[in-house]
């Protein structure tokens, strides 16, 4: 290797190495037996997924409590049960997939393969997860919105004797439908945004590093 143009730096580096050896903690003094790093990008992705599951569970528990108080009717409850089961199946599946991504597996290999392994597994998992979120959202969301709308109509018409068409033009109905049509219209974008902020940005930082390694220009 041609090192002549960097001889001075190599000498400096060697001197620095001696200091590093002096400064480094004694290996036998470092507790490694029970230590497991939780500060990796993979752990962060897993942590975000668990956080998301926890939020969904809390939201579902809230809906269930409201439901048991008898505010909504039985048809709504059936859909809540359906949604709960679907959410749990999805969470269990993705937790299993996430569980298979272990940061310890690839530390023995070289950097490029290690990065490729994490990116492939995490990227695939998140892509399927995003699709699943979109499919579930577009099936359940309109149904739940229509059921709530139906409930609102019945409670409104019980007080004032109006038809569904008349109710459609009331302020309450317009606001409700307006908000929810916007929600459905932007649902895809919202899912994309939140998945990107929870998982995508971490995977992208690894991809960037991988591209730097790959770049042969």
């Amino acid at each position: 290797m041609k090192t002549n143009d960097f001889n001075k730096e190599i000498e400096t580096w060697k001197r620095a190495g001696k200091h590093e050896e002096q400064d480094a903690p004694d290996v036998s003094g470092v507790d490694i037996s029970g230590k497991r790093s939780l500060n990796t990008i993979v752990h962060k992705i897993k942590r975000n997924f668990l956080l998301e599951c926890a939020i969904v569970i809390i939201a579902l528990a809230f809906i269930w409590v409201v439901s048991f108080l008898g505010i909504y009717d039985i048809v709504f409850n059936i859909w809540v049960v359906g949604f709960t089961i679907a959410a749990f199946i999805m969470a269990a599946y993705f937790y299993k997939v996430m569980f298979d991504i272990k940061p310890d597996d690839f530390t023995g290999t070289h950097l490029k393969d290690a990065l490729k392994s994490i990116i492939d597994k995490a990227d695939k998992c998140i892509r399927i997860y995003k699709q699943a979120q979109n499919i579930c959202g577009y099936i359940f969301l309109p149904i739940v919105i229509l059921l709530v709308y139906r409930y609102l109509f019945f409670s409104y018409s019980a007080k004032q004797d109006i038809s569904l068409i008349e109710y459609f033009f009331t302020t309450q109905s317009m606001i409700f439908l307006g908000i929810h049509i916007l929600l459905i219209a932007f649902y895809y974008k919202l899912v994309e945004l939140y998945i990107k902020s929870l998982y995508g940005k971490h995977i992208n930082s690894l991809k960037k590093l991988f591209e730097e390694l790959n770049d042969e220009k």
Partner: protein
Amino acid sequence: MFSKSEKTKEEFSEFIEPNKGIIGRVSRLFTNSEEDRLDLYQDILYQLWMCYPQFRGDSKPGTFIYKVAFNVACTRLRKEKRRKKMHEEYVLHTLNSKSNTSNGKEDINRLYAAISKLNDVDKSIITLFLDEYSNDEIAEILGISQVNARVKIHRAKNQLRKILTNENK
């Protein structure tokens, strides 16, 4: 999995002890604070301990340690904001306080600070290059082709040279 008996721990310590400077270097170059550095040091040691049974002696211990150290350091979670600035300040601070016994400490500080300005890949490449690893070994540690390694070494050296020259002005 390999049984990690006390004897193995002893072997592991003997394996790491002569190369702990490598872990120290990588920890310093890839972190922003003393607390982070010790954390990364411990993380690398932990991963080395986990991977130690896989080491068959086909390559130099240093090569194996660098592989694991770079994998841990590069896939570690870091806060990007102010990272580079903090890093540079940290490198200068720690070396000023710890290397004051040697002559040429300014050169060491200058070199560390310059390397800290490079991206993670160039940082890894320059670390290996300055440790006098051959092009083939660098390619093997990073998992890239030899041609790619040569190109990257050349580019990283130019980058480092540019930073060092700019600092001298």
